């Protein structure tokens, strides 16, 4: 990228530089600095550090393969990222109140449309109905309790689902999407008209002590969902790989990127084996990406991630469509780095994380509220978090230029380094027998745990400074009040589900659930395309999400797999 004259000047000037450092700082060693992924970082970068990069292959321009600099030739200039705060609590009608408030406060999707990023409570997440004894103590507390088509109606009535992006954050995805489809059909719509996103986290809510389905069975369910969507829901993004969850569990930037791509590869491999054309399902795979404290490292991770994904799509899967190669991203800025102590400082932290995400060229963003170390956000804190995104979008001038940090010697060097490191981790996974083996053996979890433990030890020793927690500590009394859902939520949710079951045609429900068992058995034998339609039929026959989930458990192994072992 540089002519010999420039490189010669660099070598000469860097010699002078090294000499100046040695003289001015009396030989003190500054070379031990590393980024948060452990990559050694120098104090200054020059063309010498990126002389081996090829401009066309390694950097390029926005909107061309390998899309490192941006998915599109014009990005925020044409369409800024979707501001997409996660929201959900209590009963569906409570969540609707927050949806409306956030929309009123300027939460918007592409081209002024609406996008709602709705999180369910943990029972719904795990496919457990409110009337199940396991759900007690958890109903509506950290998300919305929503387990039937009627619950979707309570939450979404009057919203034009053909023009609205509905993001369903939930683990046990098939039964949940089935009820969403049943609701949409009750409104006269067909699945192909629906736009939005499911998570498809069949075998890993990474930060949770328990995952849903045993790895191979989970992969089959994930594949069946994708099969269904790629045939009949072209506007639906079926899969969202949970990089953020990996980060919250302990993965550093390099491991977040590589483990997320390894997960996506396992799912894509399974889809190919099921006979799907990669270009039919790759555009529906997106990534939820954590943007954390180490400002430049996470920006470079993001750029490297786009490049690595594009080359994965093209080289591994032979994709031809640009949308198969373009990394669809939802940034979820860091949570583990937010503190309960001096909580308003979290607004500052999140603003830097969000700034990093905007400079990275993300396509959607969730910024947590400052009070999340004590609970889910209040209306006031949720709107303040939204304001962070709005200030960056409207007041900083950042959207004017795509990938504005490109060309920085440091940024280009680090981006390339992150890519190299990630390729190394992906190879380690391949060498260990592939993702499924690495997931089941606990290899991935164990690495993430080691990082989490190391981080905590560094905080306890004061080597990792956390403002307000281990430095600049002040005596304080917690001034903020936690958000609490209405105490009647559990009672009402339980009454509703009992009434829902009492009112249905039980014989019809039983028939649909029996058909689901047969479809699940076929899926277990590797026959795709039957389970998700059977889930939709069961939802239309008023089987609850929990009942559909329990039916699937008759065939697929479900429950804790690796997490009861102690970390090392």
């Amino acid at each position, binding site marked *: 990228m540089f002519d010999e004259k420039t490189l010669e000047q660099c070598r000469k000037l860097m010699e002078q530089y090294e000499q100046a450092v040695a003289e001015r700082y009396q030989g003190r060693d500054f070379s031990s600095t590393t980024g948060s992924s452990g990559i050694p970082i120098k104090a200054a970068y020059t063309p010498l550090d990126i002389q081996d990069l090829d401009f066309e292959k390694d950097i390029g321009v926005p909107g061309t393969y390998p899309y490192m600099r941006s998915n599109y030739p014009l990005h925020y200039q044409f369409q800024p990222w979707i501001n997409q705060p996660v929201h959900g609590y209590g009963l569906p009608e409570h969540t609707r109140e927050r949806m409306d408030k956030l929309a009123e406060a300027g939460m918007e999707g592409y081209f002024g449309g609406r996008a709602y990023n709705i999180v369910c409570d943990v029972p719904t997440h795990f496919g457990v109905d409110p009337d199940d004894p396991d759900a007690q103590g958890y109903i509506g*507390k950290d998300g919305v309790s929503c387990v039937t088509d009627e619950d979707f109606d309570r939450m979404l009535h009057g919203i034009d689902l053909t023009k609205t992006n509905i993001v369903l954050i939930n683990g046990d995805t098939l039964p949940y999407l089935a009820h969403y489809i049943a609701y949409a059909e009750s409104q006269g719509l067909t699945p192909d008209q629906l736009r939005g996103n499911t998570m498809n986290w069949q075998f890993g809510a990474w*930060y949770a002590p328990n995952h849903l389905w045993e790895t191979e069975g989970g992969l089959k369910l994930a594949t069946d969902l994708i099969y269904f969507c790629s045939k009949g829901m072209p506007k639906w993004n079926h899969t969202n790989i949970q990089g953020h969850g990996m980060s919250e569990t302990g993965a550093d930037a390099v491991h977040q990127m590589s483990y997320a791509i390894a997960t996506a590869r396992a799912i894509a491999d399974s889809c190919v084996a099921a006979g799907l054309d990669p270009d039919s399902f790759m555009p529906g795979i997106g990534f939820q990406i954590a943007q954390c404290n180490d400002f430049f490292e996470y920006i470079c991770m993001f750029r490297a991630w786009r490049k690595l994904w594009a080359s994965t799509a093209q080289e591994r899967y032979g994709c031809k469509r640009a949308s198969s190669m373009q990394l669809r991203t939802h940034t979820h800025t860091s949570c583990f780095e937010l503190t309960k102590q001096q909580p308003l400082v979290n607004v500052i932290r999140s603003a830097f994380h969000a700034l990093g995400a905007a400079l990275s060229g993300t396509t959607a963003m969730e910024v947590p509220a400052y009070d999340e170390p004590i609970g889910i956000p209040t209306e006031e804190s949720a709107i303040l978090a939204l304001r962070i995104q709005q200030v960056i979008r409207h007041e900083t001038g950042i959207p004017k230029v795509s990938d504005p940090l490109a060309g920085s010697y440091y940024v280009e060097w680090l981006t390339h380094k992150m890519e190299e490191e990630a390729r190394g981790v992906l190879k380690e996974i391949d060498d260990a027998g592939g993702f499924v083996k690495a997931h089941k053996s606990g290899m991935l979890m164990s690495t993430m745990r080691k990082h989490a433990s190391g981080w905590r030890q560094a905080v*306890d020793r004061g080597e990792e400074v956390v403002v307000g927690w281990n430095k600049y500590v002040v005596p304080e009394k917690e001034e903020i*009040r936690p958000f609490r859902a209405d105490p009647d939520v559990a009672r009402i949710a339980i009454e509703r589900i009992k009434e829902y079951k009492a009112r249905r045609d039980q014989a019809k429900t039983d028939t649909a659930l029996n058909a689901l068992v047969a479809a699940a058995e076929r899926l277990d034998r590797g026959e795709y395309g039957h389970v998700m339609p059977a889930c939709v039929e069961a939802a239309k026959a008023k089987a609850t999400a929990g009942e559909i989930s329990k039916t699937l458990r008759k065939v697929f192994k479900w429950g804790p797999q690796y997490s*009861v072992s102690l970390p090392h």
Partner: protein
Amino acid sequence: MKSNGKAKVLLVKHWMECHDRGVKSVASILRDAGFEVVYIVYMSPEEIVATAVEEDVDVIGMSFSTGAYDAHVPQVMRLLKERGLEDVMVLVGGLIPDEDIDWLKKQGVKGVFGAGADTNQLIEMVSTAGR
């Protein structure tokens, strides 16, 4: 009290709880401090107490990230009492608003170690268990 003179600790998290980074860090911290630590993902409060008996622990540490302590802590305290295990020290950690700490202590919880809690204070408190 165990052979090395140190308390044995049972750490628990409900199977539906999300976010186990904290409790697993506590497991590492206590183990590094020389305590024997057992960690279980529980389905019901009965399982916690049954494990406490079986493992003969001095401390139970319950971790919550979604506020279910209002349902689970009183049940565990009641079951411990029924089994005559009032001297087992119960600690709570996770996402705990300060305004709930008094309530937890009234239930018989000895200490609350939430986000950003001091590692040394935790170790000190666990050290006093079983004596």
